[in-house]
């Protein structure tokens, strides 16, 4: 009884233990490879986490400056566009006003989403326009190129009829020229794909707007 059992055991164990050394070595090798794979994956993961943090635009970057300052610039265009949309008399002024207000409000959302995805605040630490060469010199009382003064906005709010239409067109033409200047500024320095693509779209839109705004102004004045 005991004999068969022991031999039986010997049998089952024989092959196992005999190869014991080699599987152990193999197992050990597998462990090393597994560990190497795990370490490699961890390094890759850490690198992957870190790389976008290091390569995405920083707090003082031109891209972040553009996103913040263009948001402010756009916000004023939205304000003026809504006035034209709500109280304009000329049908083209009404439609252009609505188009500019909704279009630029949408672009504000795009730019604010960049900032959030870059882990940045909507407010910067740099002075306005500091991201553009000689940009700070273009700021007057906190207003960036082309922006209407509080007095001009008060005048637009108070205006009626044809006067409002003409004033809106004049202010918006100047606003767009300033806006395109800023867009060119970021296109000169940035190769961030999202920023470049959106900036080009903005420029196209505003250049087309300018043609139509000028034609409308000529028509109303002529």
């Amino acid at each position: 009884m005991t004999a068969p059992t022991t031999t039986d055991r010997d049998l089952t164990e024989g092959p196992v233990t005999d190869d014991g050394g080699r599987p152990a070595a193999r197992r050990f090798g597998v462990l090393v490879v597994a560990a190497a794979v795990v370490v490699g994956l961890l390094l890759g993961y850490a690198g992957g986490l870190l790389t976008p943090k290091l390569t995405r635009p920083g707090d003082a970057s031109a891209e972040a400056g553009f996103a913040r300052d263009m948001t402010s610039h756009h916000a004023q265009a939205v304000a003026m566009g809504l006035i034209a949309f709500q109280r304009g008399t000329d049908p083209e002024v009404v439609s252009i006003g609505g188009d500019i207000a909704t279009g630029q409000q949408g672009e504000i959302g795009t730019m604010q989403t960049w900032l959030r995805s870059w882990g940045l605040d909507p407010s910067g630490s740099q002075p306005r326009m500091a991201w553009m060469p000689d940009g700070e010199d273009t700021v007057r009382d906190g207003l960036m190129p082309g922006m209407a003064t509080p007095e001009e906005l008060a005048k637009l709010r108070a205006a009626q009829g044809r006067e409002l239409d003409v004033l809106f067109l004049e202010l918006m033409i100047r606003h767009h020229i300033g806006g395109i200047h800023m867009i060119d500024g970021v296109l000169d320095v940035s190769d961030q794909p999202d920023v470049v693509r959106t900036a080009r779209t903005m420029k196209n839109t505003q250049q087309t707007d300018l043609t139509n705004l000028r034609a409308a102004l000529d028509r109303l004045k002529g």
Partner: protein
Amino acid sequence: MSISTPGGPERRPTVVTTGKKPAAGRPTPGAKAGDGKSTGAGPRPAAGGKGKGPRKPIAPVKVSQGRSWGPIALFVAVGVLAASIIGYGAWAAFQGSKPWEKRAAGIDGVVDYREKEPELVKGGNHQQGAVKYTVTPPVAGPHNAAWQNCMGDVYDAPIANEHAVHSLEHGTVWIAYRPDLPADQVTKLKSKVQGQEKMMLSPYEGLDKPISLQAWGYQLKVDNADDSRIDEFIKTLRVNASVEGPTALCSGGITATGTTPRDGNQMPTQ
């Protein structure tokens, strides 16, 4: 069975007599079998023996495997070092972009009403007429349907709380100053506000400190316009503190001053 039985005994002696080297693997199970005593349980441990087997046969294994320990140790050391360097870098990068709530809590002297009065800060129902606020200047709560225009507006006279609170809800930082604040300090505050949407400045009667900053749910009172916490408050909370997100409007609001809220047709005429 019959074939293997002869083989068994043959091997066994070799194990015992030849000494440790070739037998190395074998005494282990033998010892285990002895430990286990019950032969019935024997076969099962044999399976378990696979796991334990490698431990005992150190002698032969050690010779062949010993060589690779050096490189392995080196590899592990380098790996751990690299992982910790990259890990530290990642950690540092994450620390650098702490959420604004944590940074706000770190501003010395800031009062967080989100924590103190969560009900007040939840959101704002529109309410006509005068609203009684427990915090002065108010930081949240019900407010007028019309917001105070907050396109970087600089008001030279007090404005209505009921409109101002609506502006806060839209993400504005409202800087209120005591009317006796020296003109040069008012000018400094003005430069922080002008041309910047989601900012507004107004005098405020009866402030207990010269300057009080409000964002939705947050307040900070300071003595001087040069206080660096003012910029910190603006950077951290402007737009961020809004419960309505970055596209809430600041234009099209009330541009008039006066502490009585304006109901009715003020908004439609822009």
